[in-house]
């Protein structure tokens, strides 16, 4: 099962992403803060996390750092309203797998998520061998 964790402080954004990805046979869980996302990861075990950068409490970049420190095999796609050079540099330094800006192009996002999942599957197969 392809599992996706959507983290955004806007519930409406979580909602339509959940709807969209569920229609494409993903299991989708949502969180509205960085801390909530970190708490959920051990239970949900997502392959891909869509992570908003600007959130109250723990922001996306901190959450990204924590996720990558603990679960290096989880793919994280940063989603943000902003694309300042510093933020992008920081995210890439922390190991973000992609960095996309709002408003989202769902087609592009889905393609990207699919690629990440396929990539993960490929890695697992090669690990087993």
């Amino acid at each position: 099962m392809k599992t996706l964790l959507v983290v955004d402080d806007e519930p409406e954004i979580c909602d339509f992403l959940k709807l969209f990805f569920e229609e494409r046979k993903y299991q989708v869980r949502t969180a509205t803060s960085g801390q909530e996302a970190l708490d959920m990861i051990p239970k949900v075990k997502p392959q891909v996390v869509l992570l908003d950068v600007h959130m109250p409490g723990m922001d996306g970049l901190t959450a990204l750092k924590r996720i990558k420190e603990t679960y290096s095999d989880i793919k994280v796609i940063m989603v943000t309203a902003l694309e300042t050079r510093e933020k992008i540099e920081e995210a890439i330094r922390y190991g973000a797998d992609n960095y996309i800006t709002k408003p989202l192009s769902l087609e592009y996002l889905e393609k990207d998520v699919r690629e990440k999942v396929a990539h993960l599957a490929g890695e697992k197969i090669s690990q087993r061998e």
Partner: protein
Amino acid sequence: MKKPYIRRRKRVLKRLLVGVSLFLLGAAIFQSLYLLKGQFPILHWVANPLFLLCLMTLLAIVAYKPLDGLFVEIFKRFLFKKKSYAHLALMRLAEDLRLTLDLQELGNLIVNTFGEILHLKTAALVLPVSPKGKYKIIAGYGWNVSDYRKVHLSPEAPLIHLIRDSGPHVLIRNRIFRMVSWQDANRLAHDFDALRAGWIIPLFVQKEVVGLLAISSPQPDRKFDQADFQLFREFSDSIAKSVKIAAQYSELKQAATELQDSQSQLIQKTKLAAIEQLATGIAHEIHNPLTIISGKAQVLLLRKDRDHLEPNVEEVLKTIVRQTKRAADITRKLLMFTQGTVGKKESLSLEQVLADTIALVSYQTSLEGIEITRSVTPDIPPYKANIHEMREIFFNLILNAVQSIQSPGKVHAELDYDPHDQIWIIRISDTGKGLGQELIDKLFNPFFTTRHGALGLGLFVTKQIVHRYGGSIRVESRPKQGSLFIVQLPYTDKIGSDPLSETSPAQATS
């Protein structure tokens, strides 16, 4: 300024007066001897005409010189005031010196007055120029500007040392050379030659050397005398003071200009920072709702295979997605231009970019009766840049040109390359309404626009991009005479070394 010099007239008159005086003197002696003859018959030979001739000759030989000298003195002092022109000119100079604060103007005034009244070949005012204190000619009489620009003496030059050591005395080349060792004379000669000087008049304020006047040796027929030295001494003092004041004034002015510049830069930076903050705030607050609107519309649209959508509904959904993207682009653009972009750089044919841009706007402009032409210098090398940024430059400049034209008109785009300095040059001219100076000053400010409903970011953004590439942009324009925008992009190695240029993800644009 220059009065007719009356030397010749004076000389004739002087000779005449000397002659008359000699005659009168002779006549007086003769008369008194004649009177004496009555009492002393021994003087009977006085009546002989030969005696008269001898007396006059003797007088002419003995008394001419002293009389001549006497008259010269009298002329100098009382009748014609030989120095009157020089005196007047220098007095006026002293007056003007007090009124002139501009160093260049002051310098010209000084060297020209000196040069003219003393009939000099050359005269130059030499001043220490900050920051290194090198002595340079700031005004020259009888000099080519391009020649005297090349002349400079270090503060350690032998001549400057000599002036410091000897104080405010006029230095005469040949006399100085006789007083020093031949090595020193050699070194000094070099400095004298550089300034084409026979005489150096140092300018002192208290004990500080504020500069010097270098003047050529006087013409052979004109020797400087005691009175000239007196003049030099008197005026070198007031010149020195004025020069010092003017130099300080120009330093102050320079400092004020620099301050103004850095102030306006600071304001510009502050403005940019404010825009960045604003754009960041807007982006955050607006992009989320836009994302929701666009996202939900996309969910519906992507479901159309499963759920049937009325054609008009599908159209509406597409419009929603398109328009939300457009709205988001505004803030993104704002952000992009207040900071560096993450665009990828590649070798571009600017000619191609120009052609694409013209193709993009020419359909619309042809409807409005505006003709866009272009000329491109052959064999322009490719330019390493981000294609979007280059498009932005061309697009903004051409659009700006098109929009300045109200009735049918022309826009001409030129692409040029300077192989010597490795500079790519873009010139966009139009036959539009042109701009006054006060508009030109504001033209590149963010949110400045003369058109109703325009955002006023086009030229601002263009300038930001051009500056990021180390280039320059300027405009030449007059009201009703059209405008010419000139962009110069230099070759730089730094471009393309952006660490993000290869790794930054490209988001799909719908």
